[in-house]
């Protein structure tokens, strides 16, 4: 049976609303805590970006030195030619056999085409490429390219997300930070300018 009067229903609704309001406040507090954690992670991210910038500079200097030295070495007349060519003629078949065995065992897709491609590649290569570690240098250049790609992708990703998080956190529940000249939104980049003005320098971007 219905037991309570309208007034009692109102009183119960008020009490229940107070509880819900408290729960919403708790949730908003939780959002604030998470916002603080996101900001902290973002500060760590920015300091990592600075470290990456420094590391990239050093890495590129070392790569430039390597390429300069390689160019100087290439300028020398090829010496020990006979020794090199003799070794190369024995190196190639071993390399081809080792590689095709690996490919058949691990890569499983058709090794016929790959075998012919490898044969052609080895016949076009010079033992001096080996002797000067040309494969290691090419591998480093490829890594450098891929690393730039990965960093750009991460930056694009974060730029997109941080724009949304700026909106998400700025006005809704949080009083504005003191708006002074140096203030920049917690998720944006310090020198935040409209994108089209912002030269896509590979490093900083």
């Amino acid at each position, binding site marked *: 049976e219905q037991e309570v009067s309208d007034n009692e229903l109102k009183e119960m609704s008020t009490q229940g609303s107070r509880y819900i309001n408290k729960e*919403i406040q708790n949730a908003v507090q939780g959002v604030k805590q998470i916002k603080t954690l996101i900001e902290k992670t973002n500060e760590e991210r920015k300091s990592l970006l600075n470290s990456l910038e420094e590391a990239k500079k050093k890495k590129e200097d070392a790569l430039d030195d390597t390429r300069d030295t390689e160019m100087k070495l290439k300028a020398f007349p090829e010496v020990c030619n006979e020794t090199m060519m003799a*070794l190369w003629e024995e190196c190639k078949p071993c390399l081809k056999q080792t590689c095709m065995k690996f490919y058949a065992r691990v890569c499983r897709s058709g090794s016929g085409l790959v075998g012919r491609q490898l044969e052609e590649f080895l016949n076009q290569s010079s033992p001096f490429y080996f002797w000067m570690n040309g494969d290691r240098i090419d591998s480093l250049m490829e890594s450098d390219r891929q690393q730039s790609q990965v960093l750009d992708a991460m930056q694009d990703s974060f730029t997109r997300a941080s724009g949304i998080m700026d909106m998400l956190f700025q006005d809704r529940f949080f009083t504005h930070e003191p708006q002074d000249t140096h203030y920049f939104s917690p998720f944006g980049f310090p020198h935040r300018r409209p994108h089209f003005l912002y030269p896509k320098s590979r490093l900083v971007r």
Partner: protein
Amino acid sequence: SLIPLSHYGPPSFHDMFQPFLEMIHQAQQAMDVQFHRPAFQFPDKGLREGEDDRAVCKEIRHNSTGCLKMKGQCEKCQEILSVDCSANNPAQAHLRQELNDSLQMAERLTQQYNELLHSLQTKMLNTSSLLEQLNEQFNWVSQLANLTQGEDQYYLRVSTVTTHSNNSEEPSRVTEVVVKLFDSDPITVVLPEEVSKDNPKFMDTVAEKALQEYRKKSRA
């Protein structure tokens, strides 16, 4: 009150909370979509012998350079690397040593850079999981706001309170309270005899159960 007044008077519950969920989802998508792009296959390239076989297969198919990394398994290829032409040209030998040194430096710095990239990716994954926590923690409020159109003064409105025996065999009686959270569908909370309506905490218990029920439904 819950929300500081904005310039235009107290924003409604709907205005404040409704867009939140959508924005969290957008931020999550922006963060996550990139992780599934090929660019995120880290270039842990052959600076170490144990590199990912798949990457080697790809390289062998692409331009055969993947095979050159197997030179360590061919004695004659190794001998090429140790051919010493310095007798003919000491300057060249010095230059080759210089090349080796700068190459080792470049490889070490490339590895360092890779580790920093991994750390950066970890930070982004952390942000991604914090956004997920945000979503988990808060989506119910945003969904309630989505439901809320009017300006009802009650966040929780009790519509009926009835008591009846649980079933014909058992004499124990239960209290059934039907409530609505904002403009949600009615939620029925059934309380055992032990939770008396006269208990000051009665409505907290009702509200807590109603909210649990609502959040369970909104997760589903």
